[in-house]
């Protein structure tokens, strides 16, 4: 009953460094392989001990990552849907790369560039942004759906970033949990429970140093379980709680007066125009007005600056937050932004919030006091945001609360990610010198970057066919028809269904979507509801669906052509990247540990081939040039190196060539030879340039340089929303230039205290498990799947409070059905998990399960999918998903 001893002892150990691929935390990873000189096998992954981002740690997904590579369910060859079968029926045949490219070319011959839609996940976005954005531009394809923009990034981050100016697509802020003494999490299990390792390692340090943790959540989430105080809030009322806190802090003067006066636009003078809209007072040069306490007079401060210490003539001033009686500008009564903001929310008192949140007013009062008096304090900005109409406003309010205590870019407060800061710093210096910045993808951050991205997709002049993205065409069409429309539908799916069905017109012509290129994204499983995407991908107007991925997914089931991708452990990547959200400034990249196990390809090479199919040889030339223009990676060098790599017979010559270009480019930027630079990366996985402390000393924002908002200050009166308001006629409260209270939308316009739920009626809530990342197939990972099975009751159960479950005669393990009461066709079966760890009005489900594709042998049929019960509802600003804005009924089946 024994096996022969393995060869293990004779094999040699080898270390390589890479970046984890299972969430956008981008942890640095050390790969341990054993090799006998001929073949290598990866035996263990760990956090890279040289990394100050994740400090040598990796979560369960990171630890299990090698089993994605060794997963027997992997896509091993290109595949083509069998003729005569329908998409979704999963009838595929193996094919060669030549065959699949021929197939795509044949089936898209009639497809115009704008009739393509690309769908990408974060892999595409973070690691291949230079190639993905340039792919769109070079091929004249204005249509990108990017996941998880609507679920998370644009909703939550844009709310935060309206205040701080930081927009960077991905993470902008990593709070200094290490040094905080009071930490709040609001509507946010993402950063701890769903495990952003960079955040958890710091928060744990904070807890062990004695920080107090307060968590608002309707459920005893992984984060709430770590709290000193679990605030068991009613779903959808977090904004009420946060605004009541803000009301307390502002009206009782608990804020950091010096910071607010100096670095925010709270002291700026503001008035209401004839239409009742708030307008900040500016002169013809854009300078703002403040009331100076020293001279007791109105003075002007610069249109763009980081501080309000000097007026435009260089005189020292102390701007007032509250005005004395009777201050007038041009004969009109004015207020400060501070006073106006307080007026906007003054009705949101702790007593008001107590009724909606079900949290006693005295607790809200006490938490507001402690938050503003125990220093330093943090409200985690939230690593996830969407779900309700007012979540974007919640994130704005959280950022304002953080600014009110002066906790921006300071020890124990929010720290701007070093990569963002570096770009802002570079932009600031170019601005001071009056120079124009080249290569925007590599150099621009903050609101200028957001504006550039919006322009790319919305401005028809960017494309020779004169069409913007269908999302913008659809918005215009809706607006013209007097129907609701989305103001900034960047990389969102709004209008896509209509475009597929032939219901979108632009300048009198049909704007159709006929072909999809889906790369590393799984919209059938993670967009809402699943039936939309299934119908769309199966629609007769769609002539070709191309999916590129590592594993089959619920989405690849609907492909005509499947392109297998190498995993992150099998590839040297073409880019050199910033070190994620790290507070320290550094560079990193991926080194492969083993050669690809199967007949797989690299994203860059596939994109070039797709360009040849869509746009021909001229398109390929334009692609090289566009990458050069956007990212500064020399087209000349790239072409030369591609020829060299092709001559060598390299499997993915374009990726290999761009890696050389990127290494040389990055080495030049940091003043190293490419050889030395690459050596450091190979030996340590990270190349550090400056520490957080050095960066704060040199370029703290707003203390040392302007933040990337319009005005350079931390903005309570939002320049971003002022711009959106100017471009549209919408007056939805979402667009308020100041923070404004409005309900979640679960009960429409009503606040939640207006109605009580019926007997079997519940609020619906969901969240991520620590083991499965957004949109991914890692529920199929053998190790993660085993952990999920070990915790099956908790992870796949539908959480329901015993007081409610008893009434419905439901016990743990009972089969139940939950049905969306707004649309009863949306429902899902599952098993009950009866627990007092969920607020009695709510049910909760983990969002990670319910995979349908049988080719995922471990994940299929495990648990229930949330997107069978969630309908399609988006917010008017960025089309963020309002995915919890409904109530459900629960029945035993």
């Amino acid at each position: 009953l024994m096996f022969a001893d393995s060869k293990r002892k004779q094999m040699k150990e080898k270390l390589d460094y890479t970046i984890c691929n299972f969430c956008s935390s981008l942890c640095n990873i050390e790969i341990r392989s054993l090799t006998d000189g001929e073949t290598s096998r990866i035996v263990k992954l760990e956090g890279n001990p040289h990394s100050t981002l994740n400090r040598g740690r990796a979560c369960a997904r990171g630890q299990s990552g090698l089993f994605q590579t060794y997963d027997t369910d992997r896509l091993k060859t290109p595949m083509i849907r069998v003729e005569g079968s329908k998409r979704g029926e999963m009838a595929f045949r193996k094919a060669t790369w030549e065959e699949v490219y021929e197939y795509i070319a044949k089936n898209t011959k009639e497809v115009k560039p704008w009739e393509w839609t690309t769908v990408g996940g974060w892999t595409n976005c973070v690691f291949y942004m230079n190639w993905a954005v340039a792919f769109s531009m070079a091929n004249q394809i204005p249509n990108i759906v990017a996941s998880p923009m609507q679920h998370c990034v644009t909703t939550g981050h844009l709310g935060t970033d309206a205040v701080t100016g930081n927009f960077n697509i991905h993470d902008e802020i990593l709070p200094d949990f290490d040094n905080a003494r009071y930490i709040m999490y609001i509507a946010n299990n993402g950063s701890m429970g769903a495990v952003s390792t960079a955040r958890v390692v710091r928060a744990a340090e904070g807890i062990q140093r004695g920080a107090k943790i307060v968590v608002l959540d309707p459920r005893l989430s992984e984060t709430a379980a770590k709290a000193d105080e679990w605030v068991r809030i009613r779903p959808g009322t977090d904004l009420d709680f946060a605004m009541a806190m803000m009301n307390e802090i502002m009206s009782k003067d608990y804020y950091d007066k010096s910071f607010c006066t100096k670095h925010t636009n709270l002291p700026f003078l503001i008035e209401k125009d004839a239409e009742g809209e708030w307008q900040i007072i500016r002169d013809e040069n854009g300078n703002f007005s403040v009331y100076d306490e020293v001279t007791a007079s109105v003075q002007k401060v610069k249109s763009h600056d980081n501080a309000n210490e000097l007026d435009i003539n260089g005189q020292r001033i102390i701007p007032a937050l509250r005005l004395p009686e009777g201050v007038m500008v041009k004969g009109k009564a004015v207020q400060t932004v501070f006073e106006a903001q307080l007026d906007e929310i003054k009705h949101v008192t702790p007593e008001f919030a107590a009724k909606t949140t079900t949290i006693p007013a005295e607790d809200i009062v006490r938490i507001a006091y402690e938050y503003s008096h125990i220093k330093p304090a943090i409200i985690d900005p939230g690593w996830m945001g969407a779900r309700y109409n007012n979540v974007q406003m919640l994130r704005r309010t959280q950022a304002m609360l953080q600014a009110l205590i002066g906790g921006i870019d300071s020890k124990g407060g929010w720290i701007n990610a070093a990569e963002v800061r570096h770009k802002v710093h570079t932009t600031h210096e170019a601005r001071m010198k009056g120079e124009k910045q080249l290569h925007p993808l590599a150099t621009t951050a903050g609101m200028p970057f957001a504006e550039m991205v919006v322009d790319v997709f919305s401005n028809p002049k960017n494309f020779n066919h004169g069409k913007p993205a269908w999302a913008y065409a659809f918005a215009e069409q809706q607006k013209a028809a007097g129907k609701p429309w989305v103001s900034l539908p960047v990389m969102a799916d709004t209008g896509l269904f209509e475009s597929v069905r032939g219901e979108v017109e632009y300048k009198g012509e049909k704007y159709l979507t006929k072909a999809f290129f889906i790369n590393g994204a799984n919209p059938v499983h993670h967009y809402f509801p699943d039936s939309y995407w299934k119908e769309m991908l199966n629609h007769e107007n769609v002539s070709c669906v191309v999916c590129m991925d590592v594993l089959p997914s619920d989405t690849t089931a609907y492909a005509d052509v499947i392109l297998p991708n190498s995993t992150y452990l099998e590839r040297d990547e073409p880019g050199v990247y910033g070190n994620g959200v790290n507070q320290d400034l550094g560079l990193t990249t991926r080194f492969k540990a083993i050669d690809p196990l199967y007949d797989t390809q690299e994203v860059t090479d596939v994109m070039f081939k797709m360009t040849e199919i869509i746009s021909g040889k001229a398109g390929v030339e334009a692609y090289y040039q566009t990458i050069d223009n956007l990212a500064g990676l020399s087209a000349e060098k790239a072409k030369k190196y591609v020829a060299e790599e092709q001559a060598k017979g390299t499997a993915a010559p374009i990726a290999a060539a761009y890696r050389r270009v990127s290494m040389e480019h990055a080495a030049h930027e940091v003043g190293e030879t490419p050889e030395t630079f690459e050596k450091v990366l190979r030996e340590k996985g990270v190349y550090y340039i400056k520490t957080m402390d050095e960066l704060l000393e040199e370029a703290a924002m707003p203390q040392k340089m302007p933040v990337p908002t319009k005005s350079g200050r931390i903005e309570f009166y939002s320049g971003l929303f002022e711009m959106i308001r100017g471009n549209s006629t919408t007056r939805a409260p979402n667009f308020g230039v100041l923070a404004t209270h409005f309900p979640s939308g679960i009960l429409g316009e009503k606040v939640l205290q207006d109605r009580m739920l019926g007997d079997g009626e519940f609020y619906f809530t969901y969240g991520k498990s620590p083991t499965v990342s957004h949109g991914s197939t890692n529920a199929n990972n053998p190790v993660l799947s085993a952990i999920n099975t070990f915790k099956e009751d908790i992870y796949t159960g539908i959480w329901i409070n015993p007081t409610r479950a008893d009434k419905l005669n439901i016990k743990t393990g009972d089969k139940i059905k939950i049905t969306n009461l707004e649309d009863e066709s949306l429902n899902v079966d599952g098993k009950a998990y009866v627990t007092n760890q969920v607020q009695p009005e709510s049910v909760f489900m983990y969002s990670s399960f319910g995979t349908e594709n049988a080719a995922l042998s471990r994940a299929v049929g495990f648990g229930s999918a949330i997107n069978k019960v969630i309908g399609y509802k988006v917010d008017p600003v960025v089309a963020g998903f309002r995915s919890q804005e409904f109530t459900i009924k629960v029945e035993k089946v």
Partner: protein
Amino acid sequence: MAHYAMLIDLNTCTGCNACMAACAVENQTPFWSDKWRTQVHDISKGKSDEDAMRVFFPRLCNHCDNPPCVTVCPTGATYKMDNGIVDVDDDMCMGCQACTLACPYDARYALDYDDNTEKKAVFGEETLKKTRPGVDKCNFCRDRVEDNRLPACVETCVGNARQFADLDNPNDPVTQIINSGIAEPLMAHLGTKPNVYYIPVKKQTVHFERGTFNGQKSEGGLHPMGGENGTTFERKQNEDMHGHTEHHAAFDANSPFANTPNAQITDLLREEA
């Protein structure tokens, strides 16, 4: 000589399962058959809503100084090393499972022929660590420790909940925490002298409204809003209904709310035992 021990801070274990994954990969355990050297349990405590508690509870071999598994082993396969680690010699183990039954911590599992067959496919034949059936358990990642590395679970613990100590080194900061008496081992009353110490969880305060509406009893914290006369809100001024005010920690001495007692430390472990 070293004497190895582990400290687990239950206040920072986030239930992320990284240790389970790290251990399963490092030690090639048959996780597909639910066989683990370490597990993190997700425990519900508290019968009522205000007592609701969720505790993540990592478990592993306790490397006892008085190990029952060693006493009962008929072949001497299970043995205690000078550095405190309890390990199994695969060549001597006959798979009788006496140790599995003797262990009060349920820390051992049988490794059978089927497991080994599957292991070849999952972990790769050429890199297999153990090739014999028998019994498997945590050995504090002995190979790693002898190589001056931390056990895989400790190395990766994102919440820094797991820490590794050398009890023979009085300057070891983790040893100092253990010596401070803040942490305690599991089921010490059995006389096993375990070497895994736990810092117990702090008592958590749960906030929600316990009230009545127009004299109606609320439903387990569910406050029925609305009613005939709109949204009149009435809160019962009864101390029993205000459980949330009892456990506030006075974190800020100047706070007007500072007159409440410090958060209590409850003894999770003794209750568990």
